[in-house]
């Protein structure tokens, strides 16, 4: 029995044309679950779900700009009043983004190593542009997030906005956002970034169901359509804000769009 097993294993190693890149490539953990191809894809999918929830929650918060400064400034003040807990949320988000990116880069490097030579004739074969551009859209989105944090959280580009106070003595986020998006370059970058984010989500949302093993042949087209629709709704929600500023629908001082909300 043992001799057969030995023969088997030596046969395998001599037949094996190339050494395994996979087990050595993952250095984050030794658990087979988390170092395997599928295990790390689960991490990408689960962190992806959390980031989609963040993106949706953030959008709902942002939309409070439409009822006017009272709403968005109160919302911002409420967030700031969380104090140390806000930092916990930030660090957790940072860890989620870090895991999402680390696992993706590892998987991508392995994929490159697994495909040493491309075909002379490229054929996309059913693959969507959304799926093929995941790395590019992801990279632009992360670059945008850094810019976005510098602009609206740290307020490093225009520090005077830190001193803007509304009638109730709260930080005037409303005025800061209008001032920021009045710059067409800032708005253009924002629109580009949320457009690419929507492309990323369009593949990501349908893809995570497949990775988590929740799809069937019947359900997959539905998940794909749901991914497109959710991505489009998120894009329209985010894109509406800079567009409203550029079109003068949102302006400072605030002009109420609705007579019932002040």
């Amino acid at each position, binding site marked *: 029995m043992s001799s057969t097993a030995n023969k*088997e294993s030596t046969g*395998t190693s001599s*037949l*094996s*044309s*190339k*050494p*395994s*890149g*996979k*087990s050595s490539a993952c250095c984050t953990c030794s*658990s*087979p*679950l988390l170092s*395997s*191809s*599928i*295990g*790390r*894809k*689960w991490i990408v999918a689960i962190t992806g779900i959390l980031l989609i929830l963040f993106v949706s929650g953030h959008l709902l918060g942002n939309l409070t700009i439409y009822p006017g400064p009272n709403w968005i400034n109160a919302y911002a003040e409420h967030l700031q009043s969380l104090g140390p807990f806000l930092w916990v949320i930030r660090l957790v988000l940072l860890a989620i983004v870090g895991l999402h990116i680390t696992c993706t880069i590892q*998987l991508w490097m*392995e*994929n490159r*190593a*697994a*495909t*040493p*030579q*491309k*075909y*002379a*004739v*490229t*054929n*996309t*074969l*059913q*693959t969507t542009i959304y*799926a*093929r551009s*995941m790395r590019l859209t992801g990279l632009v989105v992360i670059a945008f997030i850094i810019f976005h944090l510098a602009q609206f959280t740290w307020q490093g580009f225009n520090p005077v906005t830190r001193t803007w106070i509304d009638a109730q003595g709260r930080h005037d986020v409303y005025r800061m956002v209008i001032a920021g998006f009045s710059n067409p370059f800032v708005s253009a970058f924002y629109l580009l970034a949320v457009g690419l984010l929507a492309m990323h989500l369009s*593949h990501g949302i*349908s*893809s995570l*169901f*497949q*990775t*988590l*093993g*929740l*799809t*069937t*042949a019947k359900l*997959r087209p539905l998940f794909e359509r749901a991914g497109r629709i959710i991505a489009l709704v998120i894009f329209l929600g985010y894109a509406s804000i800079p567009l409203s500023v550029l079109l003068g629908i949102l302006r400072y001082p605030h002009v109420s769009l609705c007579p019932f909300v002040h």
Partner: protein
Amino acid sequence: MNFHLRLWRQKSADTPGRFEGIEATNITPDCSFLEMLDIVNNRLITDGKEPIAFESDCREGICGTCSLVINGVPQGPGRGAACQVYMRKFKDGETIFVEPFRAGSFPILKDLVVNRSAYERIMRAGGFISEHTGGAPDASAILIPKPVADKAMDAAACIGCGACAAACPNSSAMLFVGAKVTHLNLLPQGQPEAKKRARAMVRAMDEEGFGNCSNYYACEAVCPASVSASVIAKLNRDYIKGEVSEAVGAID
């Protein structure tokens, strides 16, 4: 019909390859792609040149040995294996690129022939069932619901040709492994190994150096057996179930 072939020529696994232009003249439209290559080879031999090395076996679309990539499509245009591609599919005077499967885990042996032993080694890790020897049991002794039998049969249609990994931009073998795991895990005969199968086969797949699935579904588009990528979802599910069971000590 006449064709300008751009064929991949490579002497051995260790030497670099390159494309060679070869003219295929006076080919009847009803020739299969492989017959066309036979004709070209006969002429090359007559001229004292080295014939093109390519694989084929059944030539009736069953075995999947003919691992050609025609104009960037593994197993050629249309559904089915490359031997089922006929020259009438192409335009007269067309330039046709013929390449071997390109995946790091399928090393090229010569010209258009690759070594697909990696799939065999994955099968050895879990693509089997344990069964008593002796007289064959009564075929109807074990009841299998029709929908289950249908799903298992759809997955069992996989011939292990390797087109899925060849078509995948990441050279991922997930459609192949998914098909085997779905086929055997759905049936009662596959239950003794069901919990370990996905785990063992995915580990073997990773060790062979295949890439990771990015849900591009190019595999599904070229599969000559029309295996659906839903087998990959089942593989993902069964794999995690197996790993979690092992981690918490539910099975050995």
